């Protein structure tokens, strides 16, 4: 949400500012004979936070991978911020992805990892911007340390900084609370709250149902690839977990 970071002209202008953040119809994905997703309909408005819930193996990660253009659906269609799924080059500058893995290089320092991400996002980041981004996740003091010395929680925080470096309009988060201590979880909570304040949309796949109920507007529950609940988060029954 840092407005001082200057993009170098790679981010296309939004084609439709009224389009929903995510609009997916009948998304299905099959791996071999196993259906990981079955006819999932999903709509997330701008500024809305969706909790993606469900047990392990229910298809949450598959759904996020499809929406982040990493995997093609077997059938079904979707658009992100008004851009059709095939427009990878239009979608990726506008979304941030916090994956279950850190996607960082152990031999590089935290600052170098972020600088590399900045270059890849087409951003012109000076030292102050990098430090500001690191300070945002509480890592400014270890900016010069190689991240192979980081704990899992510190890597997760750095991933969070990387995923939002380019001020995305939609953030896809896969298990953001995984491997985090209490303080780390509070960082994620604060980050999600800031997303809401900035009118950004997010999909948060998590097993932390209580946190999702506190932070999200709506819930989508998957079970064996099927939607078993879609509606307001207040109506989501914890007992269903």
């Amino acid at each position, binding site marked *: 949400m840092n407005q001082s970071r200057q993009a170098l002209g790679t981010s296309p202008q939004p084609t439709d500012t009224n389009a929903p953040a995510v609009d997916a119809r009948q998304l299905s994905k099959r791996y071999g004979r196993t259906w990981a997703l079955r006819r999932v309909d999903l709509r997330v408005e701008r500024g809305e936070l969706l909790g993606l819930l469900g047990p392990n193996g229910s298809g949450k990660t598959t759904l996020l991978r499809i929406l982040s253009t*990493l995997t093609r659906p077997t059938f079904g269609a979707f658009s992100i911020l008004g851009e059709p799924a095939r427009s990878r080059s239009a979608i990726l500058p506008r979304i941030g992805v916090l994956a279950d893995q850190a996607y960082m290089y152990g031999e590089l320092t935290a600052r170098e990892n972020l600088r590399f991400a900045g270059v890849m996002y087409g951003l012109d980041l000076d030292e102050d911007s990098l430090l500001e981004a690191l300070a945002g996740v509480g890592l400014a003091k270890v900016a010069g340390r190689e991240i192979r010395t980081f704990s899992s929680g510190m890597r997760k925080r750095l991933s969070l900084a990387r995923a939002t470096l380019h001020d995305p309009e939609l953030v896809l988060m896969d298990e953001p609370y995984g491997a985090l201590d209490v303080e780390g979880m509070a960082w994620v909570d604060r980050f999600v709250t800031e997303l809401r304040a900035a009118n950004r949309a997010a999909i948060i796949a998590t097993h932390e149902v209580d946190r999702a109920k506190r932070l999200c507007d709506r819930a989508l529950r998957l079970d064996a690839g099927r939607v078993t609940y879609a509606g307001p988060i207040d109506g989501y029954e914890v007992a269903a977990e």
Partner: protein
Amino acid sequence: MSDLRRAVGVARKDLLIERRSKAAFNAMAFFAALVLFIFSFALGPEAPGLSPAGQTLLQYLWPGLLWVAIFFTGILALGRSFQLEMDSGGLQALRLYPGDLKAIYLGKLAANLVVLLAMELLLIPLSAVLYNVDLWTKLPGLLGVTVLGSIGFVAVGTFYAALTANLRAREVMLPLLLFPTQVPIVVGAVRATALIVHGDPMGELNVWLQMLALVDVVLLTVCTLTFEFAIEE
């Protein structure tokens, strides 16, 4: 312009990691030295050569042995190039960045080329000393052949390293896929090197250099245009 910047970013990142870890270079240097010593022991330092110029067998075969050592050691650098992406969570991270995927290929290619050329700078003088080959007056020509041969090798090697990065048997698959495509590079590079070192009475060198350059252009073009399919799931 942004894609060029991304390619430079990928190359700088890979070279910085290599400078810190030296994982590829150290392995390549030791392996290259081993290959040279094994050839030396196997063929014998004093075995007579096949030409009437009074060369030893090692001196006569030096161009071929040099390129065998370059290709075998180069495989190590290519494998390492995408292994470090797998160590950091896979190629997905690179695919999540916007921009043309060709930038990733060109950045990886540049980094691999720099590592391979650095290793060759060590390997060529070492092998010349070990096999008693007089190179010093022929170094400029040799440098040109080395660069041309290395570009073709790294162009296809980087492509196949990406293609096999997700495979369990990648250490086997990479050379299996790569070496058949290297036949024109091997033939061209060895012939051109031999002409430079042993003499070129028929003026054939330019033909071989042109062929190497042409093969480089074709391989670079094909691999650049098809790279995105190599890293797709």
